[in-house]
């Protein structure tokens, strides 16, 4: 038995890196400390795709990697409008090959941000993002706001490691000396911990943010007695708490990016942060979901110039979310083949998109079976990054951390599978041009 410390979790955007595990006979046998229950489950391993497979007459039939790579390359090379989607639950090294493959194919490359924090990216492109690293929040913040997020259940270590419960340089007393504000449409495990719980009406985030903004800018007089289900009294109290902070930190989640005014909610949340900044230090940070969704945005940006929804048909990058994000492309029935990696559009896309995706040839690369596997035509099992493979990832605050390899895998890494597909596509194109 070997004990491995400083293990980095490849589950959510928290990317906890202080986990200790035990490894025996090339298996993670115990997660001793550091991980939340979901992270622990990933580290311990579960149900895997067993073999590469190609769908024949409606059934997935096991095949060799060579056969699957040949088939995948043929599908992609023959496609006139391929879509390469996913990229958030794998490492940057694989993402880079993905961008290169997209460039070679003249494909559209999009990542899970487009159905997640895509609206946040649009808001940042509108007004910017006054933010900070998570350690900065840990050491300084005395007022924490979670808006449309439920970290107690979705990012289970977030409060303990970085925000409300953690102890840092100026926050030695931990939560005793901090205030927690939670804004949500319903009571959750997180709201139970809050000093202030603003239960707002569904879809009224924009109004409540506007009201707080007005108060912070000294225009409380224009705010009516109730806004979006919240009393003016509670809004005034919250604004006072924000103004009185030494350092305030807002975190926001899916509850506000994908409801009502969508990206305009986030613009308003950022503007509220700027308003608070006229009184004291205030920051705002999106609660990124997958462990490396921030990373694919980074890689895609430094390589193509743009973070998601990038069309490479013209040989250069054309960015137009709303037209070129995966769901839009699929709803318009434009794409005629797709490669899906480290994600599950089969479970998360709107029905109409999935309907078209199920009709076109789909290549899937993933360690784990999921609803997308049910209609995938070529399936590649891959090593689990962070357990069986190492590589770079970006935490939700864009801090790069290297995942560790704990055990050997019988499956190849994402990067290797993608490189082999890319080589095969190039070989096919070379042949065609001769």
């Amino acid at each position, binding site marked *: 038995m070997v004990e491995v410390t400083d293990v980095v979790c490849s589950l959510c955007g928290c990317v906890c890196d202080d986990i200790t595990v035990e490894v025996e006979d090339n298996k993670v046998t115990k997660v001793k400390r550091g991980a939340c229950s979901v992270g622990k489950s990933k580290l311990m391993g579960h149900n895997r795709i067993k073999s590469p497979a190609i769908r024949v007459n409606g059934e997935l039939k096991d095949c060799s990697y060579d056969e699957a790579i040949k088939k995948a390359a043929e599908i992609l090379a023959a496609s006139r409008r391929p879509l390469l989607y996913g990229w958030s639950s794998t490492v940057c090294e694989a993402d880079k090959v993905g961008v290169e493959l997209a460039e070679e194919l003249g494909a559209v490359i999009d990542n899970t941000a487009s159905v997640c924090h895509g609206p946040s990216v649009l808001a940042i492109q509108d007004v910017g993002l006054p933010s900070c690293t998570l350690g900065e929040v840990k050491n*300084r913040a005395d007022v924490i706001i979670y808006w449309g997020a439920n970290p107690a259940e979705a990012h289970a270590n977030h409060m303990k490691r970085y925000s409300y419960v953690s102890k840092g340089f100026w926050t030695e007393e931990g939560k005793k000396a901090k205030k927690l504000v939670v804004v949500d449409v319903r009571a959750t495990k997180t709201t139970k911990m809050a000093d202030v719980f603003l239960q707002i009406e569904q879809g009224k985030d924009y109004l409540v943010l506007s009201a707080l903004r007005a108060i912070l800018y000294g225009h409380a007089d224009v705010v009516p007695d109730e806004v979006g289900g919240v009393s003016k009294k509670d809004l005034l109290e919250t604004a006072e708490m924000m103004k009185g902070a030494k350092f305030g930190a807002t975190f926001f989640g899916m509850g506000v990016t994908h409801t009502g005014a969508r990206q305009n909610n986030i613009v308003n949340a950022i503007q509220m942060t700027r308003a608070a900044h006229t009184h004291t230090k205030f920051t705002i940070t999106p609660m990124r979901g997958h462990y490396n969704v921030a990373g694919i945005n980074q890689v895609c940006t430094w390589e193509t110039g743009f973070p998601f929804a990038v069309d490479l048909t013209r040989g250069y990058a054309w960015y137009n979310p709303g037209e070129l994000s995966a769901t839009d492309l699929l709803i318009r029935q434009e794409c005629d083949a797709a490669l899906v990696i480290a994600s599950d559009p089969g479970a998360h896309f709107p029905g109409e998109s999935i309907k078209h995706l199920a009709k076109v040839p789909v290549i899937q690369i993933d360690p784990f079976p999921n609803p997308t596997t049910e209609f995938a035509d070529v399936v590649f099992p891959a090593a689990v990054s962070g357990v069986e493979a190492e590589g770079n990832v970006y935490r939700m605050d864009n801090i790069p951390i290297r995942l560790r390899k704990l055990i050997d895998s019988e499956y190849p890494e994402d990067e290797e599978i993608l490189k082999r597909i890319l080589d095969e596509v190039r070989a096919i194109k070379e042949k065609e041009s001769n």
Partner: protein
Amino acid sequence: MAEVLIKNGVVYDPLNGVKGEKKDICIRDGKVVAEVKNPKVIDAEGRVVMPGGVDIHSHIAGGKVNSGRLFRPEDGRKGLEAKTKVCRMQSGYSVPNTFAIGYRYAKMGYTFVMEAAMPPLAARHTHEEMVDTPILDNAALPLLDNNWMTMEYVNGGDIDLLAAYVAWIMKATKGFGVKIVNPGGTEMWGWGKNCSLNDTVPTFNVTPAEIIKGLGEANEKLEMPHSIHVHTNMLGHPGNFEITKETYDLVKGVNTVKDRQVMHTTHTQFHSYGGTNWGDFESKADEIAGYINQNDHATIDIGSVILGDTTTMTADGPMEYNLYQITGRKWTNHDVELETGSGITPFLYSGKSPVNTIQWAIGVELALLVEDPWKIALTTDHPNAGPFIGYPILISMLMSKKRRDESSADMHKVIYDKALLPSIDREYSLYEIAIITRGMTAKALGLHEHGKGHLGVGADGDVAIYDMSPEETDAGKIQKAFLNTKYTIKGGQIVVKDGEVVATPDGKTYFVTPECDDKLTDEMMVKLKDKFDRYYSVTLNNYPVQDAYVPNPYEIKTQMRG
């Protein structure tokens, strides 16, 4: 053995005192040699030949550069170019993608670029982007001045322990030298505040002046190739020239065994301001140049303005906040725990604005008023005062009084009262241009000892052949020649021919590994371990940059002086 012979060129190689001589350059296996036997011959036909350009200060890779790209798709769309058989796709103007950065620098004859600000905690990011930047050799300067370890050691007067920490950071980040950006001010920005040179930083009880001096001493104890590299306090504030001069004085008594300055101040244009507000704002380039002329311990780069839209970005968080307050445009900020911060906001330098006009003049004035070109480097602080692609404009202005007069006539008339530029007659020679773009910069970085910035035997086979004769005086033709080389040769390989990129080899990453006494390191590690146990959000073992991030390493070893 791959051999190249460049014949019939007129060579400007200042580090070897070659001033426009007709001279052959021989390269074998990537290095300059005395003679070759069976070379590929490049006939330069009387054109200007220089060593590959060495940029001393540019923001080309890392978190804030990429945040700039991400939040400015409107800039990304300005520079779109399709992939070719050789090149990958390109985007961006002030914040180009990594591929475009490599190609565009190479086309200007540059082969080495220093990334000027690397947050240690995010060093992996900087390296990831540098690896993805083709052709260019590179290095990065870790930010060390708002760092809690630094401030605590400076407060205790423990310069040896500070040196041990600096040594550790260089190794942990694969960094090249000590970067200082608004010392104290960025830590105070953690609370939304700022400070000036002699203010005390609360909690840490040090002044920015003490931080600068302490790091200057530690840097020389480690015998680093480069001096401390300083972005002084109060960037962009009217009247800040006094603070800049006072900053130089801080390290006047610091000794070095190296043959170079003990302080390099960067983008000095932003720090040469007179007046008390934007109304009576004026150039004090003469004051700064006067100081540099009278002293030998400090060098500067100019950070000259390129008119038009750009993206400003710096670890000076409070400065970017001030700028955003002025323009009301979008603003991104990213404070980094225990270490540093950063801010980004777009900015338009307009010739119609009196303030921008004076700023535009100051950078060029500095270059013209500093008498010894070995004390000054050409930069735009890319992309802060403008994108690096504007270098040829600056070169043509420095070489042509006529060009400056024509340009000045298009600017706000304030240029004739509050700036000095119209009154200066000096014109740079090609030899002096070669100094401020390669000879001086390589020497100031200590890279001349590692084959950069010159063409002596043993130097790297990095050569730029510009499509102009040494007698050319037409500013337009000079600008055109410096934008797209006839040939750029990198490590003996032709990478640009007739202004087109023809090969894209990987660049090397230069980093410094200073060694110091184990006992000193052990003592330092106790304090550092406590910082990780209690305050950092990553563990000590996950912090250092792994070898995988530097696939083409060039290590420079140094030893701490007792």
